[in-house]
């Protein structure tokens, strides 16, 4: 253990060069810890420093960073995950995307805070980590296996069971560099955004397998840590805004968003549930208790969030599946499927195939609509009939995509590229941003804050996320989602919070407490004296780094807008008639001003960079500092 790092840190970054099969470690300095904390912050720093613009997502020099943070492996709820930072395949820009489970805890207990992978292997390998034993091993026997099979195979090979081994892999989708391939592990935890799994596949890295290590983690103030952990837990349990999350995870989202007009139904063609759907099955208790289920929590987590369930009926009765998150359920609705059992099955097929569930939802929904309207023919799909709600057909499409078979090869490029390739009326039905990503599983036409956030995010997904305890920043408790000015300001002011959360090595669901509370926990772990202001500055620093990275990669503000369908006007439901397009430019004006970025070029302004301690980016972004001064 590095003697100088603060409490909570293992003190080492594991470096792997797949081209040369060289493995080494790098000490983490206390300064880097304090400045970037970990996870997304640490990843952003490395990405900026080591991936120049000419290194695209599929260049061997691209870095695949799997980082934890100071909370990982400690008894704070939900502290087993990892944050993947890389130059992603969907936008060819930055991504940071989180998965949970036990990867992070196991990595920390083996003595590492992060893994940085570069190069491309000359053979398929998997990375084996157990304390000081770190090896690249032949992955030939694992090829063609899905994420669950890969983990099972390694458990059998290594003779380890349960949480003694964490395996994160990218499935067949990763092997075939499907653009929206994800990285998934621990049976149901997915870092899904921006094609991080395609990067993994491009590097010929089949999996990362970490044995629960034997090293100890010290913290500055153990008693303080336990108290802060309890404080966070109590807040999650008892605060009205998080109580339903505590009891049901994201399940309540389906009914809530349906009532708000934000549940995406049949590829944004309606916001009203079809008649005859038993909506009681879709309430949180309905979804939870409609299946035999058991809690399946991440490291040290007391939430009743992640669950495993057994399919109670249908053609796959008796199969064990991961209880879908809201996003999984909503992907079903996007395809017009209103049978929870069918959606639950499909969701696990998507996890195992290892693609982003949202992207697949939009893709399948889009193909269904296009086939119905005759824009895509059965012949084009190799004889496949894809009718609304048919999950078996959707799974066949999924299998075509991950193997890049026939039309699947085009669809494997994701919604935007496939739509642009097809053009015509088909393209007009497709949901995506011009940067190249797609939204979460919401109808953002009834959630303007997330539409703006999704388009302006630098990570291939939304950056700010739903506002959490935003009154901490002087914002009003409630704002109308259709108030362009208020929305843009909230998204701007809260930008950085999630980056900070995503640097801690904790799940972004268990950090839904006050920033001040998170700081108390962080300080107990590290011995620092973070205030919520410093924490927010830290998060904004990460956001600015990722933004600077994207600008350097050529992602400019003109791409920050929704596709035609994505930015259209709801035709029915609670948000009928609301039209964001009229307000779009103004929203961007307000947002840019709030975050301190340049409206024209997208760059963080020199003053912003200085405020965030990122002066060293100014020459690279702005040329000489004088020029920058002259500009602003």
């Amino acid at each position, binding site marked *: 253990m590095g003697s100088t790092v603060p409490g909570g840190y293992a003190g080492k970054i594991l470096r792997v060069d797949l081209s040369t099969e060289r493995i080494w470690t790098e000490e983490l300095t206390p300064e880097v810890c304090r400045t970037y904390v970990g996870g997304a912050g640490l990843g952003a720093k490395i990405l900026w420093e080591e991936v120049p613009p000419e290194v695209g997502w599929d260049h061997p020099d691209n870095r695949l960073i799997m980082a934890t943070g100071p909370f990982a492996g400690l008894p704070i709820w939900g502290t087993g995950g990892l944050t993947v930072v890389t130059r992603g395949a969907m936008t060819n820009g930055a991504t940071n995307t989180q998965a949970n489970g036990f990867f992070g805890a196991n990595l920390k207990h083996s003595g590492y805070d992060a893994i940085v992978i570069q190069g491309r292997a000359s053979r398929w390998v998997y990375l084996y980590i*157990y*304390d000081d034993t770190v090896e690249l091993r032949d992955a030939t026997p694992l090829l063609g296996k899905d994420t669950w099979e890969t983990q099972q195979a390694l458990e*059998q090979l*290594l*003779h*380890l*069971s349960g949480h*003694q081994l964490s395996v994160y892999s990218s499935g067949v989708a990763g092997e075939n560099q499907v653009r929206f391939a994800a990285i998934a592990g621990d049976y149901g935890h997915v870092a899904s955004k921006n094609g991080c799994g395609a990067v993994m596949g491009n590097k010929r890295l089949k999996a990362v397998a970490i044995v*629960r290590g*034997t090293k100890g983690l010290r913290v500055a103030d153990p008693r303080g840590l336990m108290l802060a952990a309890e404080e966070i837990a109590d807040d999650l349990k008892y605060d009205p805004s998080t109580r339903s999350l505590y009891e049901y995870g994201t399940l309540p989202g389906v009914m809530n968003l349906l009532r708000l007009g934000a549940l995406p139904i049949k590829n944004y063609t309606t916001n009203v549930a079809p008649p005859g759907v038993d909506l009681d099955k879709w309430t949180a208790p309905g979804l939870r208790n409609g299946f035999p289920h058991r809690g399946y929590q991440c490291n040290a987590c007391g939430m009743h969030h992640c669950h495993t369930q057994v399919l109670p009926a249908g053609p796959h009765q008796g199969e064990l599946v991961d209880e879908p998150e809201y996003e999984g359920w909503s992907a079903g609705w996007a395809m017009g499927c209103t049978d929870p059992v069918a959606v639950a099955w499909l969701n696990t097929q998507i996890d195992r195939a290892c693609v982003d569930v949202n992207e697949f939802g939009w893709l399948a929904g889009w193909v269904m609509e296009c086939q119905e309207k005759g824009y895509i023919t059965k012949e084009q799909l190799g004889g496949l009939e894809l009718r609304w709600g048919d999950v078996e057909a959707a799974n066949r499409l999924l299998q075509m995509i991950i193997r890049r078979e026939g039309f699947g090869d085009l669809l494997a490029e994701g919604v935007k590229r496939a739509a642009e390739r097809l053009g015509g009326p088909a393209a007009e039905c497709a949901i995506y941003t011009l940067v190249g990503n797609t939204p979460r599983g919401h109808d953002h036409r009834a959630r303007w804050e997330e539409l703006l956030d999704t388009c302006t995010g630098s990570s291939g997904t939304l950056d700010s996320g739903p506002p959490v305890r935003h009154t901490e920043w002087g914002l009003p408790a409630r704002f109308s989602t259709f108030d362009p000015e208020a929305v843009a300001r909230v998204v701007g002011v809260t930008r950085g919070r999630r980056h900070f959360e995503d640097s801690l090595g904790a799940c972004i669901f268990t950090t839904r407490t006050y920033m001040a509370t998170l700081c108390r926990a962080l300080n107990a772990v590290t011995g620092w004296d973070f205030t919520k202001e410093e924490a927010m500055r830290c998060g904004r620093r990460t956001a600015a780094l990722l933004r600077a990275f994207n600008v350097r990669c050529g992602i400019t503000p003109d791409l920050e807008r929704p596709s035609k369908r994505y930015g259209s006007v709801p035709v029915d439901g609670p948000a009928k008639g609301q039209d964001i397009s009229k307000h779009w430019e103004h929203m961007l004006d307000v947002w840019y001003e709030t975050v301190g970025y340049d409206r024209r070029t997208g760059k963080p302004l020199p003053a912003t960079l200085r405020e965030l301690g990122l002066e060293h980016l100014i020459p690279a972004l702005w040329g000489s500092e004088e020029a920058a001064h002259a500009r602003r």
Partner: protein
Amino acid sequence: MVRHVIVGGGTAGMNAITTIRQYDKGASEIVLVASERPYARMVLPYYLKGDISEAHVYTATPARLRALDVQTYIGRRAVGLDPQAGTVTLDDGTQLAYDDLLIATGSSPVRPPVPGADAADVYSFWTLEQAQAVLHRLRPGCHVAMVGAGFIAFTILNAILARQARLTVVEIAPQVLPRMIDAQGAKLVEEWLRQRGVHLRTGANLTAIEPADGRKRLRFQEGEDVVADVVILATGIRPNLEWLEGTGLAINRGVLVDEHLRSNVPNVYAAGDIAEGRDLVRGEAAVHAIEPTAMEHGRVVGANMAGQPVAYRGSLLMNIVEVLDLEIASFGAWDDPQAEVSQALVPERFAYRKLLWRGDRLVGAMLIGPSREVWTSNDLGMLKGLVQSGIRLGAWKSYLHHHPFDVKRAFIAAGTTARLLPQTVLGSPSVPAAAVAVRRGV
């Protein structure tokens, strides 16, 4: 007042004394004859390694023996037994009359029949005295030749290496630990030792030990000589039975005893290395010259001598030794040639499990794995529990056959805990030995 005479102050003898007192609270006379001050032989390697002081080695201080109200003949050796008269004769001619007698005289090391093996400066490592002599000779950088690669030899490898000595181990058998693990396991252990700088020579037939300029030269039937600064012999032990010849005691490899550890001679019991009693797994009589058997024998015989008719289920053969943080253990019928075998080997993790089956019962097991591994000591105990309990594993047999490393799941799901909870030796809660004392004058 009943008079118990205990010959031997090792593990069996001391456990017997403590157990008698636990039951009778002092209502009997106890006489202990011991050739040395009672000490724990298992602890000698740690003394040699320098982890503990000499005082730590002793199991029964004079104060403890007083507290237990034991009359002692320390430094005395029993040389004769007259069952008709009910007396034991000591080496100084003392005659001790007994109402009942426990023979627990243990065993002694065997020196190989090789010229020079009996020299005074060729050491055994059995008694405290011998351990002290070896200790005295070990210097950093000195070259130690260990003759024998069995359990006893292995218990002291750590100590020798911790003292920064160079080590050569020579063994006549084709593998190390021939009476504890199979050839496949031995290969793993040998590789582990070689990687850590131990020089191994198996299949080595020693022909002579000769003086060589203050050092010793070991000659072999084949291959180069070994010149060492210190030679330690660890070539086996045999029970100390000589003094019992002609007494009418039924003796096979040891003194044959029944389930109450009684010999064929009335009022004469035997326990520990010298006793040949029931083997738990195989059911037949066997000498188990191991510490756990000595302890259990001592407790059972103590209870019986105190008038508690405790029947002993039998002793389970088990050995554990750790070399440089590699755990090596075997249980029960680990070498049963008729048993069905399940095994798995992960060479890169130095992990090995071997399970031996009769029907769906586990009759023996072998385990090798690094100490730091989470499941090593877990599996150790659970394998012991499965063999000891004799539980039928049913469908779990097939599971264990495919997953010999996943002992825990099968152990738990078979309900082994419920089966084990009532399976005890004496059937009464343990009392720490230090808490057992005779209250005089009550």
